[in-house]
């Protein structure tokens, strides 16, 4: 009896795989299970081969599963394309009337659970997507959930649809359930349905919700996979959340609007992927120079250039690090889980406003789109909002917008406040904001001002890094191997470490969230004390490996790198770890 299971639903784009997946996810999470789900799709609207993989368990999950136990496939491609990842001895659910599996296609052992999906579905509707509901009905039986659970779920999902539609779905679900009950054996699982409902969230949405919670009032974006769902969430929730959402002509406008809104005093954020971010880089420097606090989300996808728009990668680290000409303070944070996306959004706004600089949140498709379950109390709504030093009328004399201070942070006055009028300028300026680039540049007195302003701005990072929680080694100190990961891959490593443990190998883990500024001292200490080190990241050149070496001098020699567009799996990490430890 297992208490964990991975299901893959596969079919053609347009087959409704996404909504079928979502229904399964909700069905499980609302019945007290943990879920971890991820979707495979292409940069095409119809006709590609798509899949949704949903891992279900009584316990917290860290990955959607290297392999899956059960495959529901709506077409033959599911057999030819998905078979490599079906577990030996797994189950394939399919409609034998639609296609047959030839012997030469049985490259491994599996059980065939044949269900006449189409035939059953036709009883209720001519819509082919109803087949999914039949299959989910059967699956509900197989995982030993009562049909009522699915019925409730259907009523919720189609709440705003007509009675007929709801009935049609209910009937299809029941028929699938009945068919399975009469013909198939339930799975050997032992799910505990007594726990309370869990939240399900994708990384992007957790981040959007966190931003909302932090008081973000302005979100701007130009559509771009995999960041678009943030835009959609904000657009949907704008009236309720008293927020403005704009979709301007391009990403240059997006970020400059974000700066404009922040200048006027609201918390403002924008989001994009690598290509859109490339267009924003000039204005990242503008935000830093004018000391306007903004939050920019970059969700990475397969590059270079248009690359693999619907696939994951973590290869934009140097793009965000190098964004904008010149030396200036910026912050790069890569949240490590869906939950962390929520808290990172809040933290990002607090940092941005406390230090009056641009904060970049670096996600990737895998974190943006994967779905995790959370206990409701894991999302603490009672969070600290720190808007930094915004001066009120009359509060200060001899106001200087860019006053030189110990930690580099100067008093910020919002337009409309009497007495503090000034120009926020992208040219080098003195404490008052007056340009020194024009008439004065190069004169002896101005060389001093320039130097002081550069140092004032750069000091922010020195102070900030002291405030940020330093990374700590997770797991036993004297492990055989220290695995470094960042962002979306951290959870994968957690799972790999469990697998290693089960095989008698002790590994510990260094998860990095703050990429820049970096905790060089602490990381250096940890890595110097490690027996062996290995880094895990989804790119070709080991970008964060390079970053670490740049700031610590330490070369992490062993690497798990993947750049084919699919997320790194625990198996990838596990296998390489074994090699490293054994060599």
């Amino acid at each position, binding site marked *: 009896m297992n208490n964990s299971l991975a299901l893959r639903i596969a079919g053609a784009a347009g087959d409704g795989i996404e909504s079928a997946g979502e229904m399964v996810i909700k069905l499980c999470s*609302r019945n007290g299970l943990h879920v971890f789900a991820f979707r495979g799709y292409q940069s095409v609207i119809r006709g590609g081969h798509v899949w949704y993989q949903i891992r279900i368990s009584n316990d917290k999950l860290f990955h959607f599963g290297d392999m899956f136990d059960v495959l529901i496939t709506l077409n033959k491609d599911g057999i030819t394309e998905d078979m490599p990842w079906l577990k030996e001895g797994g189950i394939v659910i399919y409609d034998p009337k639609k296609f047959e599996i030839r012997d030469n296609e049985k490259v491994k052992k599996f059980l065939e659970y044949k269900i006449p999906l189409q035939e059953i579905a036709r009883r209720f509707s001519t819509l082919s997507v109803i087949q999914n509901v039949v299959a989910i009905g059967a699956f509900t039986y197989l995982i030993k959930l009562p049909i009522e659970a699915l019925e409730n779920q259907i009523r919720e999902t189609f709440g705003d649809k007509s009675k007929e539609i709801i009935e049609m779905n209910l009937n299809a679900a029941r028929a699938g359930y009945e068919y399975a009950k009469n013909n198939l054996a339930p799975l050997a699982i032992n799910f505990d349905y007594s726990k309370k409902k*869990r939240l*399900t*969230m994708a990384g992007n*949405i957790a981040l959007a*919700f966190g931003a*909302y*919670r932090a*008081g973000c*009032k*302005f979100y*701007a974006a130009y559509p771009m996979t995999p960041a678009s769902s943030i835009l959609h969430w904000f657009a949907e*929730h704008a*009236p309720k*959340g*008293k*927020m*403005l959402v*704009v979709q*301007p*002509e*391009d990403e*240059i*406008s*997006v970020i*400059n*609007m974000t*700066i*404009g*809104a*922040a*200048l*006027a*005093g*609201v918390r*403002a954020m924008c989001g994009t992927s690598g290509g859109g971010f490339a267009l924003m880089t*000039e*204005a990242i420097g*503008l935000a830093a120079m*004018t000391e306007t606090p903004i939050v920019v989300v970059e969700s990475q996808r397969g590059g270079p250039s248009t690359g693999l728009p619907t696939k994951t990668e973590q290869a934009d680290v140097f793009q965000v690090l190098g964004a904008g000409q010149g030396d200036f303070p910026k912050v790069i944070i890569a949240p490590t889980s869906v939950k962390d996306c929520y808290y990172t959004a809040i933290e990002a706004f607090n940092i941005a406003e406390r230090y009056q600089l641009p904060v970049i949140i670096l996600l990737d498709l895998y974190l943006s789109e994967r779905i995790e379950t959370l206990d*409701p109390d894991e999302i603490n*709504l009672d969070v600290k909002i720190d808007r930094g030093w915004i001066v009120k009328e009359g509060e200060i004399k001899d106001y200087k917008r860019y006053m030189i201070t110990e930690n580099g942070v100067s008093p910020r006055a*919002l*337009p*409309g*406040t*009497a*007495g*503090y*009028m*000034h*120009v*926020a*300028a*992208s*040219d080098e300026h003195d404490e008052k904001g*007056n*340009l020194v680039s*024009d*008439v004065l540049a190069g004169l002896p007195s101005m060389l001093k001002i320039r130097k002081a302003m550069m140092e004032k701005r750069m000091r922010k990072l020195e102070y900030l890094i002291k405030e940020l929680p330093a990374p700590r080694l997770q797991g036993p100190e004297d492990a055989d191997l220290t695995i470094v990961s960042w962002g979306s891959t951290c959870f994968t490593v957690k799972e790999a470490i469990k697998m290693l443990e089960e095989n008698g190998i002790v590994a510990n883990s260094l998860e990095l969230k703050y990429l820049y500024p970096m905790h060089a001292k602490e990381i250096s200490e940890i890595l110097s004390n490690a027996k062996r080190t290995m880094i895990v990241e989804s790119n070709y050149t080991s970008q964060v490996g390079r970053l670490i070496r740049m700031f610590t001098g330490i070369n992490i020699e062993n690497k798990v790198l993947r750049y084919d567009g699919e997320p790194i799996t625990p198996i990838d990490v596990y296998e390489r770890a074994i090699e490293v430890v054994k060599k």
Partner: protein
Amino acid sequence: MTLAVADIRKFVGEIRPDWCPGCGDFGVLNALQRALAELRLEPKDVLIVSGIGCSSNLPGFTTTYGFHGIHGRALPVATAAKLANHKLEVVVTVGDGDGYGIGMGHFIHVMRRNPDITMIVMDNQIYGLTTGQASPTSLQGHKTKSTPYGVIDEPINPIALAIAGGATYVARGFSGDPAHLAMLIKNGILHKGFALIDVFSPCVTFNKLNTYDWFRQRIYKLEETGHDPRDIDAAFKKAREFGPKIPIGLFYVTEKPTYTEYFEILKDKPLVEQPMPSLEEAKEILEEFL
């Protein structure tokens, strides 16, 4: 309107403009200061947003709030600042390269949204700050540093584009006639919606072709003809007049809802004054994930 010198002074900043003596931008600055004074605005309530160029240094010479951004991007900054606090009077002051060259995409798109901001383009038909290359409004044949054998590209027609782009107030002024210009700016600010004021603002250093005299010989005022600025076809015709005679004044005006008005939540108060979400509101949204 009677206007005390003190009223204008209120908008005259401490920093002396660093433009070349005789630069057209002085006239624009004066006209703007005058318009703001005539409107009895308070410096704290005005936000002047610019890009990069000689002309874009303008905000630094006033007493209002200002944002001196990057080349070509004043409009998005201004649009969003206005959305975030629509109590502010937002004015954009840029050059022809900034507004019509690198900033062209924003220029066309801002008009679709009709935010209540006023855009003043100091159109000197040259790139001044970079020492004299051709600009999008340089005339064909004009010899500049980047076109020593004469400009090839046809100049863009900002007035025609603004009319086609859906601007609700389209005017052209001449910095050699600051009183007329101040009137156009004042009405532009009063106008509810996006106002474009393209200003012939000669660059005395790098544009030896389109001088004050060149304009004086050609310009005439639309107000002094029977031009009806509500007639879009007439406006489009006038917009194409650019030869021995060149019209200045108000080409076109119409009414449309402004960007701010479209957002329900702004009816109540400016975005910047809206409270953070309460714990209850947040809880309600969190429920959606259950």
